[in-house]
């Protein structure tokens, strides 16, 4: 074996060449064609460098220079699962669906592993992802083995479902690229609570393709809580039809490097998209939220509020692009990005980008960056609250404010726990 010596893009391409006849769907021409096409794009571009505009502030060199293997052996047996947030859950270990750990009985819709149901994925898989321009989507398309397949028929309320991803440390660097496909039919509803945990030298590179049909509503809460050795690079593509809603709330707190990239398109009148989140980093960590929102129809609304807390020598990035197409009159767009810097060595890069081609729109954005407010701190201390406790209260308040808009109680509680877990750990080490 010589492939182990190959790093970065070359290593992944070599692995694709070696595995392509064994990957799920290897005998399906439509899927082979998708993978082959993605491989061509990935070969041409490789991992993005900082010369690429969308990657100016996030350096993928540590990923590009490493050599990751696939998790070749199936992890089986008992695995510690995170505390459940819902009755129904789909569990993935190293990116592979584990029916034995999942609980999907009694659901009124298709929910399960993609690899065992590839026929149902035709037409969905690859419908939204853009491997030609986004190398991580190309890498995912080339090498995905499994993922969540959810298809909720018209008018069905799917309730609450959990997506759990666990990476188990095999003792050497490894990568997995789950492909999650989610479709909500007209008027369907779902709250999806996603938790990612894991350890080891690991690259977790999921791609979501999400279709929200007319009047449907998807609430998607994400807690990216892998350990500090993990690279988490996720890309979400969502398309929202007339009267539909996609709410995304992401807590990114844990991995060495997190890229939370979301591309959403509002394609019918009165569609709505809310993208919110809280991202945190401490010494040596890097968190990046990059959103791209297409207002491609009139009377649509979008809201984005992201909060970043940075401690130690860490770096945070927020890039938010709103593109209002010429037809998208009466667009109501809002974007806010607030960063709290707890150390002088922390750095935040913030880049809002509005491109507006319609003339009757309401679009605004704002950004704040700062340390804890001195007046607030003095107010608390003047009441007898010691300085460290007063600081902690203000950080907690900043973080909790981020989840105030989440209306689902279960989801809000889960997100709040994720924020508190990070902050409790941070306070201890600080």
């Amino acid at each position, binding site marked *: 074996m010589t492939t182990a010596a190959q790093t970065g893009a070359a290593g992944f391409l070599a692995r694709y060449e070696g595995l392509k006849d064994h990957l799920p769907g290897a005998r399906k021409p439509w899927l082979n064609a998708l993978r082959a096409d993605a491989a061509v794009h990935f070969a041409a571009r490789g991992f993005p460098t900082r010369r690429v505009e969308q990657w100016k502030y996030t350096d993928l060199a540590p990923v590009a220079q490493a050599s990751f293997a696939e998790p070749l052996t199936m992890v089986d047996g008992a695995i510690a699962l995170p505390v459940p947030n819902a009755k129904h859950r789909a569990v993935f270990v190293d990116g592979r669906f584990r029916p034995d750990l999942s609980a999907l009985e009694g659901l009124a819709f298709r929910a399960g592993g993609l690899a065992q149901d590839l026929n149902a994925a035709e037409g969905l898989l690859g419908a939204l992802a853009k491997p030609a321009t986004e190398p991580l989507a190309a890498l995912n398309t080339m090498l995905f083995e499994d993922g969540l397949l959810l298809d909720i028929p018209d008018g069905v309320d799917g309730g609450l479902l959990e997506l759990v991803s666990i990476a188990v440390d095999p003792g050497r660097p490894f990568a997995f690229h789950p492909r999650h496909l989610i479709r909500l039919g007209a008027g369907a509803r779902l709250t999806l609570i996603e938790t990612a945990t894991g350890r080891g030298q690991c690259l977790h590179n999921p791609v979501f393709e999400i279709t929200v049909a007319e009047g449907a509503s998807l609430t998607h809460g994400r807690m990216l809580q892998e350990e500090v050795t993990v690279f988490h690079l996720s890309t979400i593509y969502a398309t929202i039809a007339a009267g539909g809603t996609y709410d995304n709330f992401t807590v990114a707190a844990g991995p060495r490097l997190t890229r939370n990239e979301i591309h959403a398109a509002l394609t019918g009148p009165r569609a709505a998209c809310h993208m919110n989140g809280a991202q945190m980093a401490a010494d040596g960590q890097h968190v990046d939220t990059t959103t791209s929102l297409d207002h491609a129809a009139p009377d649509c609304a979008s809201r984005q509020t992201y909060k970043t807390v940075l401690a130690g020598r860490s770096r945070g990035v927020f890039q938010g692009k709103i593109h209002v197409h010429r037809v998208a009159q009466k667009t109501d767009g809002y974007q806010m990005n607030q960063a709290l810097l707890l150390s002088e060595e922390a750095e935040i890069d913030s880049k809002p980008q509005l491109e507006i081609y319609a003339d009757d729109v309401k679009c605004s954005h704002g950004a704040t960056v700062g340390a804890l407010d001195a007046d607030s701190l003095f107010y608390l201390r003047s009441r*007898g609250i010691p300085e460290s406790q007063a600081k902690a*209260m203000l950080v907690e308040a900043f973080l909790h404010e981020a989840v105030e808009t989440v209306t689902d109680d279960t989801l809000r509680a889960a997100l709040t726990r994720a924020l508190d877990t990070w902050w409790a750990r941070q306070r201890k080490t600080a």
Partner: protein
Amino acid sequence: MLKIEGLTAEVEGKQILKGIDLEVPTGEVHAIMGPNGSGKSTLSYVLSGREGYEVTGGTATFNGQDILAMEPEERAAAGLFLAFQYPVELPGVGNATFLRTALNAQRKARGESELDAMQFLKLARERMKALAMPEDMLKRGVNVGFSGGEKKRNEILQMALLKPSLAILDETDSGLDIDALKIVADGVNAMRGPGFSALVITHYQRLLDYIVPDRVHVLMGGRIVKSGGPDLAKELEAQGYAAVQAAA
């Protein structure tokens, strides 16, 4: 008792307090009156330990302790309370959490047992009733969306819960209508007694109709230029600060 001697202080390199001498014996309420820019708020911030207010000379002791050497939270635990002229809004910090944390922090610092949520709520509700505060003000963020009057009442509520032995009220009357003023004054008067003293800082005499001081001091140009009984406040109201300055 609060004892200030020759206190000088500067803000951003500019001297504001130019030698304050003042004694507030235990159990007394003193008023400090003065025009804008005379150093009234600076005095309150210096005494409570706000950053950026640099003491350049003199002393301030409270019951014999050198308060200028203490952290703001230590001063609070020692019994000092500042009612802010502009109470700070703290979005995301629940008022109940804030009040209980403050109360328990002080109790802890004094070696007393902390109150649990139920004990605290009972006490807070009792005090709020006396201040005619709606109970939902406990659930809201600290001062967030509060009217000017509600913010000042929230300050008085904090005072009533924390039970300081020395309260500094920094222009607590500003922005209050007459009904709110009476409620605030009642809150202060209810605290009066042998273990409580207060420094009431105000621009106008109006508040002193409701909180009748034992002594009135006039602060001008960073110094106490005149002291007297409660009638001095009325004199000031009638003649203005300029006349006092001319006479001083």
